[in-house]
Each structure stands twice: as structure tokens, then as C-alpha cells.
């Protein structure tokens, strides 16, 4: 009788856990996917060269396309364009567009991470590891294992706010299991019906004093954006 009770209790629990990891990640992606998006912000990069700040404008449309344009600082004039499969960069003094490795970094953060991941389930297998508390918030701890070598990290551990599905913390691991980076969301704002992390800090765990803080000043959601913005032709100009 006890055995049957255990099985009756255990099976639904495991089903809920195995299904909900995908569901949670899907909700995270939904929360960070907009019909369109425009944000202004800055990155503060700290490394061996000291601290430097660059301001940017970011655009996104749907799941696949995003564009970041730097308007000041050392990166001034750079444009980074991400499609579902590729990452491109246009430097101000370059005539041609460079296809970037997704691992290419700006300080501690890769350009791939900067432009955001909105189709996580396409590239990662998920597993719910349990629940924890971060700064008084109840979070889901989810493991992501890469399905493809195209992505920057083999393994991630996401700590997702169980209420608003904002990722509060990410631990990035190499294939050998070494912790390489940590991302912490330091500020969350509600814009319309979406919760968005507006201040985050990524720390490189392999290099001392190497971090990138990203701060968003203004965010506009679901505004009309010309499709031309998200094209290689436009990037070349």
C-alpha cells in the first residue's frame, strides 16, 4: 500500500519536474521576446585596461533578429547584428561586414549573450534541478546543456524568478565542468506586462577584475520598427 502511495506521488512529481523545466525556459523566452524592442543603455567594461563605458541603442524584432549600435566610447560606431543562426559585426572603419564567432567577447560578455537568447530550447536541453531562494526571491534552478557547438557555453545553470520568470542569476560552465562566468541581474523593471532585467553584471571567473555591467536607461516595447534595420545591407551602411 505504502509502495503504491509512493509511486502515485512520485510519478506525477517527476513528470511535473521534467515538463516544467522546458515550460519555465519557454516562459523565460516569452518574457524576453517582444514584437519589437528598442532600448538605450550603456555597458561598463572592467578589465586589464581599467574601466571604460560605451553607450548603445539596441533593437529587436521577434525571436530571431536583434541589432546593437554603439554610440559612444571605445566601441563607438560598431553595429552588431544577430540572426537566428549568425552573428555579424560592422566596424566603423571597416568596409565589409565581419561574421563573428559567437564566443567573441566584449569584456566578460560575449556578443551572443549581449544580443540575448530568445529560442533557448532550440539550442539547449533543459533539466530542473530544484528550487532555491536568491535575495528573498523564490527561484527555479535549471540546467541547460548545449545541443550544438555554435553556442558560447556548453552548460548553464539558470536561476529563474518563479513569479515573473526573469533570470536572476546564470552560472556558465565549460565542458570540463569549470565555472567560467557568472551573470547576476541587479535590477528588474516592469514594462507593460513584461518584466525586464535592466541592470546586470557579468563576471569572468577565469580572469581577475574582468566584468561587464549592462544598464538599460529606457526601454520601448512593441513599437513600429522597419524590417530594413535588420538586414545585412542596412548594416553595411
Amino acid at each position, binding site marked *: 500500500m505504502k509502495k503504491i502511495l509512493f509511486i502515485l506521488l512520485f510519478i506525477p512529481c517527476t513528470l511535473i519536474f521534467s515538463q516544467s523545466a522546458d515550460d519555465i525556459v519557454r516562459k523565460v523566452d516569452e518574457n524576453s521576446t517582444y514584437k519589437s524592442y528598442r532600448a538605450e543603455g550603456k555597458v561598463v567594461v572592467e578589465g586589464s585596461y581599467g574601466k571604460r563605458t560605451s553607450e548603445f541603442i539596441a533593437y529587436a524584432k521577434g525571436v530571431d533578429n536583434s541589432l546593437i549600435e554603439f554610440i559612444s566610447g571605445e566601441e563607438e560606431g*560598431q553595429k552588431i547584428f544577430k540572426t537566428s543562426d549568425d552573428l555579424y559585426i560592422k566596424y566603423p*572603419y571597416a568596409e565589409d561586414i565581419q561574421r563573428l564567432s559567437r564566443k567573441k567577447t566584449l569584456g566578460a560578455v560575449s556578443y551572443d549573450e549581449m544580443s540575448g537568447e530568445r529560442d533557448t530550447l532550440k539550442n539547449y536541453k533543459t533539466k530542473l534541478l530544484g528550487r532555491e531562494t536568491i535575495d528573498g526571491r523564490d527561484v527555479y534552478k535549471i540546467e541547460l546543456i548545449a545541443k550544438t557547438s555554435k553556442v558560447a557555453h556548453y552548460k548553464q545553470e539558470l536561476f529563474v524568478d518563479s513569479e515573473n520568470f526573469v533570470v536572476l542569476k546564470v552560472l556558465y560552465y565549460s565542458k570540463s565542468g569549470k565555472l567560467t562566468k557568472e551573470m547576476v541581474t541587479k535590477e528588474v523593471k516592469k514594462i507593460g506586462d513584461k518584466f525586464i532585467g535592466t541592470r546586470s553584471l557579468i563576471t569572468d571567473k577565469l580572469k581577475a577584475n574582468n566584468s561587464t555591467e549592462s544598464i538599460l536607461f529606457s526601454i520601448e516595447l512593441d513599437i513600429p520598427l522597419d524590417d530594413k534595420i535588420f538586414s545585412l545591407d542596412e548594416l553595411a551602411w
Partner: protein
Amino acid sequence: MKLGNIAIRNLKRNSKRSLLSISATAIATYSIVFMFSFINGLANDMKDIAFNYTTGEILVRNREFDEKSFSLDRAVDNYKEVITLLNSNFPLLELSPRLKFPASVFDPKDPDRIYSSFGVAVDFESEINFLKLNDKLLEGKIPEGPREVLMGHGLAKELGLKVGDKFTPITMTRRGASTGITFKIVGLARFSDSGFSNKTFIASLDELPVMLKMEGAVTDILVKGVGDKNIETVITDMNNLFMNNGIKDLGAFTWKSVGVGYSFMQMAEFAYNIMGVILFFLASSVIANTMLMVVFERRKEIGTITAMGMTSGEVVRLFFLEALALGVIGAGIGTILGSVTIIPLSLLGLDLSGFTGGIEMGASFHIFPTLSFKSTVLVFLYSVFIAAFVSLFPSRGAAKVDPVVALRSI
């Protein structure tokens, strides 16, 4: 009869044995003359590379510049003012301001495949004299515009580029941001420094510092025309000049203290000296062996001449003179043959660049062996001395031969 004549006559008596000793000494002397000339050539080659391409005789740079991480933020700021200051205080010296930066060229078909290279921004007007650029040009022309480059022919070959093509190296700005600049190749050049030929493209200092967010800055100022004797004095004067003008972040460094060329040269010299000692030892052992054999074979003769009144000292001198004659003839032949071989090689050169396996060691390895009168004479005298010195031991043995015992065996 004089001892000298007896010695010569004795050498002729067993010409094959004498020939063996002479040959051993000649081969050792020849090898050492050749090696020393080769070292001289290698040293000149390394100096040429260091003075013209990497450091100058004196390198002026930021004291905190780190060669390994290429810390562009530790630069020579306001370099034009520094050049003016140096020119007014050291008017006879040649100066070359350079901005050197690492750059990667991505394969357009595979962004994970990267070719590493170096860019060097220079003042082409001064480099035409300093680096003798016109002599290095294989094809095309010296750049005139800000986005034009002169590329090392080896790098162009590796990248599959030719004159007229464009390429976009990716590099870092002063404070570590990545940036890419499209250049047009207007000329290809072959440099003595394989690093310059195989890894480097040269652009103009006019606009590049702006693109790298390094306005008014360079990484290095190379200084030439100092001379070995004055180098320490000039360095002290330059460092005092910087301190007195409030430029505390800059330092002047001798070419020997920066770069790998000098330490490699010292290592090579040490290795060649060891080889020289081994060669001398081998040649000396042949002479010593010959003299020992002579002493044992001529015991009866020694007994006879001592019975006839020759003193022990005269016997020692006789064998010493024989060894000396062998040494003089062998070392003379070796020195002459070495010189005859080196003189044409010093004009034609020895191209050993194919044997380095592409490793950069601060030398072109197209070496012009240089005969030094001083070292050649020293090698000759040293060879003679060693040959004569090793003969002393068997000679002293010969002098101790008891004439009664020796004559009894007749």
C-alpha cells in the same frame, strides 16, 4: 746541428704521422675560424634586425609597456613632442616612431579560422631612410594614403592577397575594445626580418592612431646611430632628459635588454665556444698521441743523443719544437683555408632561413659570415699554443729516458 733543424728533419722522417697531426690541427683551426666568422655574421644579422625592425639601438617606450599583453594603453603619448625633444638634444641620431599592434584576419568563409598578424604604423617619410623601404619593395609602391598598406610578401601569400586587394584586420583599441579597419594593399615587400615579411603590414601614422583611439601616441620610438661605445651614456642622458622634462612614464632601453635577439646571440656564442673547446681538445689529443708515439718509438734514438751529450732540457726543447712546427703548419693551413672559404661567403651569404622551421628568433638567418682579423689571429695563436703545450708532457717523459737502459736494447 741546431735543434730546429733536427726537429724539422724528424718531422720529415715520418711524414704520414706528421701529416695526421697537421691535418687534425688544420681541421680544428679551420672549423673554429669558420664558426667564429659565422657567429660574427649571426651577430651582425641579429643587430641588423634589432636595430632596424624591433628595437633600434635604443628603444624609447613607456616603462610599463608589456610586450606579452601588448598593453597599448601604456604608450608614448605626444610622441611628436618627444621626437622634437630628442632631435634637439641628440641631433645626430636617427629616430623612428612606430605604433605596433597585433591584428587578426578572419577567414571570410570560416569565422573561427584566424590568421594572426602585426600592424605597424610608421612615418613613411622617415622610414624610407630608417628602414630603407624602397630597397625592400618587391611590387607596387610605398603607401601614400591613410588606408593604404605595404604588406610583407609572406603574409600576403598566407592570406592569398595581392597588390590592389583589400583586407580587414581586427585589432584592439587603446583600452581593449575590438575594432576592424579595411586597408588596401598598395605594395608588397621583402624584409630581412622574417617576422616583418611573414606577419606584418605597414600603414601610415597619419590616421591610424585615431582609429585605434590612440591620438598622438605610438608604442615605440626606435633610435639608431648611437654606436656600441656611447650607448650607455646616451641612455643615461635620455632618461635624465625625460625626467627633467616631466616625462616620467618614458624610459630609454638598450637593445640588449629588450627583445630576444641578444639573449639568443649570447646563447649561440656560448654553444659555439663549447664546440670550439671540444674541437681544440680533439685536435690536441691527436697531437699529444702522435708525440707520445714518437717518444716511445724513438727511445733508442733518445738514448743515443743523450749519451752523446744532449741534456734533458735540450730533449724537451727538441720535442717541443717538433710539436710547435706541427702546430704552426696545421694552424696556418686551417687559418688560410678558413679565410679562403669565408671571404666569398661573406659576399654571397648563407641562406639558412629554411632551417628555422618558421620560428622567429630575431634573425633573418640569411647570414654573411664575417672574418675578424683579431679573432682569426687569436685562433691561429691559440691553436699553435695548444699544439705546443700538449707536447710538453710526452717531451718530459722523453727527457727522463735513461741512456744506459735505452742503449742496452740496441
